[in-house]
């Protein structure tokens, strides 16, 4: 008998009594001003949050950051945002990105509760560039700020704001063929609050909350463990203009 069959048979024999899967609908934590709360949360987890009006202000702000001024090598995954010194499509191995000083990437979602920004790997040629860089800059629209993590996952799983009332069926979401998602939507500025971002459509995606850190030596918090030493999140009010 294969191990799989043996394990499954034993689990079925030993399964505890069945019980219901609880509903996740509830009045979860909300904030009067989620953007302000998000910015505060980013600072609390060791990052820096800056709010700007539009694309022009965004570029001015990025150019004025110390980390970009000092940077020799910047990778910007967002067209028209910041400077880009490397064409990721021409890079064979991510190892070549070892000396990147600053990476600029787009976040599709932000979570007010914990200062986390969702970054989808679908848009990034070599995901290691998010971690090899010394400093990370994330750009996210104020319209993309969710109050809490439940709301964030509703959007990530395609429930969006509509589905909360039972509009979308979970089982209809076929992870490997959810065609609604097209990489590049962010770049074309089509992002709208509540747009579905099917989680499994990309082989990689993550919440980033603050810079890389550790407290493994005597519980002393040290910022800059293996990944980026700093995280700057730029919240943009009117990303499309």
């Amino acid at each position, binding site marked *: 008998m*294969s*191990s799989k069959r043996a*394990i*499954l048979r034993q*689990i079925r*024999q*030993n*399964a*505890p009594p069945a*019980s*219901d*899967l*609880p509903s*996740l609908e509830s*009045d979860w*934590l909300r904030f009067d001003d989620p953007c302000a709360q998000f910015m505060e949360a980013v600072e609390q*987890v060791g990052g820096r949050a800056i709010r700007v009006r539009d694309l022009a202000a965004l570029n001015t702000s990025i150019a004025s950051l110390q980390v970009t001024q000092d940077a020799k090598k910047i990778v910007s995954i967002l067209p028209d945002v910041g400077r880009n010194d490397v064409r990721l499509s021409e890079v064979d191995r*991510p*190892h070549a990105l*070892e000396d990147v000083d600053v990476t600029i990437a787009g976040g599709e979602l932000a979570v007010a*509760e*914990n*200062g*986390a920004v969702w970054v989808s790997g679908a848009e990034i040629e*070599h*995901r*290691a560039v*998010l*971690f090899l860089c010394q400093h990370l800059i994330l750009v996210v629209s104020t319209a993309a700020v969710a109050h*809490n*993590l*439940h709301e*964030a*996952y*509703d959007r*990530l*799983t395609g429930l969006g704001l509509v589905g909360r009332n039972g509009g979308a069926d979970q089982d209809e979401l076929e*992870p490997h063929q959810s065609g609604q998602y097209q990489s590049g939507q962010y770049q074309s500025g089509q992002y709208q609050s509540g747009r579905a971002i099917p*989680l*499994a459509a990309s*082989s*990689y995606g*993550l*919440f980033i*909350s*603050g*810079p*890389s850190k*550790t*407290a*493994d*030596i*005597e*519980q*002393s918090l*040290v910022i*800059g*463990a*293996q*990944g980026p030493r700093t995280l700057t999140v730029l919240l943009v009010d009117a990303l499309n203009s």
Partner: protein
Amino acid sequence: MKHAQAAAEFIADPERAHWHDQALWFVRAKRDKAAQAVPEWEQLRQVASQIKAHTMGQLADYLEQFDARASALGVVVHWARDAGEHNRIVLQILQQHQVRHVVKSKSMLTEECGLNGHLEQHGIEVVDTDLGERIVQLRGEHPSHIVLPAIHIKKAEVGELFHQRLGTDAGATDPKYLTEAARQHLRQEFLRADAGITGVNFAIAETGGFVVCTNEGNADLTASLPKLHIACMGIEKLIPRARDLGVFLRLLARSATGQPITSYSSHFHGPQPGGELHLVLVDNKRSEILASSDFGRALHCIRCGACLNTCPVYRRSGGHSYGATIAGPIGSTLNPSHDPGAYPTLPYACSLCGSCSEVCPVKIDLDHQLFTWRDRLVRQGLVPWWKRVSMRALGLVLRSPNIYRLTGWLTRNVGRHLPRWLLYNRLNVWGRQREIPPLPKKTFAELYAERGPVASRGTQSQGEGSQLDEGRRLGESGAGEADRENRDVQ
């Protein structure tokens, strides 16, 4: 080794034991603050507990669903009945790819299976990349805590270790400097690795994906630089829906370290472009433990470490005193479930204070399980003879009012005059670190009789009642608990 003996080694250095205790209490306090900042905290715990209970009831179905969805995403799914099979599978994958050098992010499962040793025996170099794990690895030790692997090590010791192994300045102990040295060292390891191994925090049945949480970002470097990624998980890590992550990720980091979420919560759905992703599902007795109505709920554990941080015994005895991969209250129930004969003293490494159950984000009834384990161990004859004899004697005394009164009289009237050598000899294990409190002259029954009939003391008993309430309130608040803690130490 018995827990008490191993703990004796740890507390032989009282200063270190106290420092360890304080460091963990600091983490526990941060957890309290984070939990209290979430108004629906108790609701989250309840929902998390229900999700886990539901999943365990249908675990086989969910595993099949997960296997199918993950395979459809291009993940190669393997099943391992035990630690040996897990290690063979991982080794085989690595050998097929001619891997010589592996980087690994934190995985308690691979610790449980002894993967590092197995790979090293076959000539594969394994580098743990979590800073704490790298420290214990360089020291030739194992983690003493599931979230804070090097919590038992002082910075001066890390400084000395890094001086010898990584060439840092002699005598340097600044955590910032040492962390920077580890960063430079580990970066080279990431860059030269042929494969990366990670653990799994949560696997999602409906999508076939899984989530890995770190603060350092080491799991992402591990899974992004080499083309080959192997993820190892126990079968109990499954959750039904992606949306369930909203519940668990809100609980995990707050319970573990008091952070609102870990720095990185990475979701893997299939291999990276041009890469290969293998996932090993490991049983290793979990499907047996599932059958137990007493101890099966220990499989709900999400490995946050909150029960370790709060446990008065863990904090004062250190993780290595448990002699197992998982220490603390959760380890004290899980390890005997794996092998009661090998860990018969762990359920006694507990004061039954119940704090572990209070902080557990998935509401595992840890203190009840440890209590139940003691019953089980006695029935299985797995406790030492002197404990069996003394418990039988105590049973005799407590069953008979006459013997009870006689024993009390003897203790009060003869006991106080006994010489120390007779009271505190080798048989009195309890008295090794403790003094018997001063013996009262009168019994409770005598004192009670002296106070006269209850009816005549209406006002007095009211006063007592409010005092009781006061005590209860104090006991519930954090301050009260800290007070109790302090008394405990004295």
